């Protein structure tokens, strides 16, 4: 069982973008929403629509992401959404402070219109950011991460660490599965669960120790090889960096990301828009 990257080349708008653009855009949206503390549905809904559009444009097959989405939905709806609905905490104080009419009562807890609207807003706000996070491993070429970080301004050494980590990953996954098979051949029973937590954890040692110790030996050999090639003495060349070039679409996305980031601050602190409030149409549904 070898580790396989979830990445697959697809000729889509998203995958034609420069990886740097995608990372920068991702951070612009996240920080644009979270740092100015935006809770206004009039700002969140357009961003949600944009994230959903970008997600669909990535054309990731449903069977690939089904498990991830099930987990996220459980987290978002059951833990976060339900908590928001019942407690109303986690966002702006106005949710719990407002004298919002009670719609119904669960286990002695008043569920107000404000709490219902807040729970809905929070779920949409979280999914907006998740929609941008999930496609990354499926649509970004693992061979280009290191180069992308280098071109984003990280040092040669940090970028090379990224690159090397990607290179080692399949090797260690292979070592791990080989170790697991060998230990099983010797009678090691992974599935046999007994004893307390500590003894069960100790039972995992025969799987972990050989892989980790082998990797420390490999490390010394790689260090020797790199030192012999004078790694780190002068700036290195990054051949793949020729593949990274901002095109028109990249400038457009970077501009959009910048507008979202700055827009969040301007709306919140300049124009006073973006705070949590309950729209009249929603209140009218209940009263």
């Amino acid at each position, binding site marked *: 069982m070898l580790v396989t990257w979830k990445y697959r080349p697809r000729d889509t708008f998203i995958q034609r973008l420069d990886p740097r653009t995608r990372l920068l855009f991702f951070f612009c949206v996240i920080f644009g929403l979270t740092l100015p503390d935006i809770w206004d549905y009039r700002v969140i809904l357009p961003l949600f629509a944009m994230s959903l559009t970008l997600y669909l444009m990535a054309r990731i097959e449903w069977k690939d992401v089904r498990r991830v989405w099930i987990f996220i939905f459980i987290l978002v709806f059951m833990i976060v959404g339900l908590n928001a609905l019942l407690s109303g905490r986690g966002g702006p104080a106005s949710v719990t402070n407002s004298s919002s009419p009670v719609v119904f009562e669960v286990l002695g807890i008043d569920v107000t219109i404000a709490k219902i609207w807040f729970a809905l807003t929070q779920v949409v706000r979280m999914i907006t*950011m998740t929609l941008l996070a999930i496609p990354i491993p499926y649509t970004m070429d693992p061979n280009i991460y290191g180069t992308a970080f280098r071109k984003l301004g990280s040092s040669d050494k940090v970028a*090379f*660490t990224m690159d090397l980590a990607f290179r080692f990953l399949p090797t260690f996954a292979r070592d791990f599965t080989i170790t697991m098979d060998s230990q099983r051949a010797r009678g090691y029973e992974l599935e046999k*669960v007994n004893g307390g937590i500590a003894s069960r954890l100790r039972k995992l040692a025969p799987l972990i120790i050989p892989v980790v110790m082998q990797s420390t030996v490999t490390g010394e050999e790689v260090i020797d090889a790199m030192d012999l090639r004078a790694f780190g003495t002068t700036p290195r060349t990054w051949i793949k960096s020729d593949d990274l070039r901002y095109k028109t679409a990249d400038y457009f996305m970077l501009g959009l990301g910048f507008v979202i980031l700055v827009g969040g601050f301007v709306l919140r602190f300049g124009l006073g828009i973006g705070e949590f409030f309950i729209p009249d149409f929603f209140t009218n549904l209940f009263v």
Partner: protein
Amino acid sequence: MNNSSTWEFGTRQVVYGAIGAALYGVLSWASNFIPLPAAGNVTFRPAVAVLIFFGTAYGPWVGFLAGFIGNTLGDAISGWGFFWNWSVGNGLMGLVAGLVAAQIKDFRAQGDIIKAVIYGIVGVAVGMLFASLTEMLTSGIDINTALVGYFVPAFIGNAVVTTVLLPILMVAFAAVASRRGR
């Protein structure tokens, strides 16, 4: 073994940062299909002990890179996406654990092992606290959910794993290192 300064960042740190990251990524990914011990909503991920071990053995930079890149890789190959605050939290976990590296003289000595475990647990606390508290910004949860729902289970699980597995890793490493003569 630790004749370099704590914050040095050379070839050794680059290579072990990458190796630690790849291992942490692989073992986190393996957590998806290996039956792991669990109690309530606390999961015991053995990968964490490997991350703390890399910090302990090779210093704070290696710990940080292994945690940050490793968590990103683990999430990526499992298909979770990219959750930057948990990656930074994992990085901090390795970094704080790595602050003990310069003080470890003998990986087999009881005193050194206890010191490493204490730094490891502090690292777990710092890293998971960062990740849980920043969830308040990204998911808008309240401090109660952040602490009870995210921090406490993550802290308990990771602290137990560190306490149980880190000493085993350190003793095994002492044997490998002495055989290699470095």
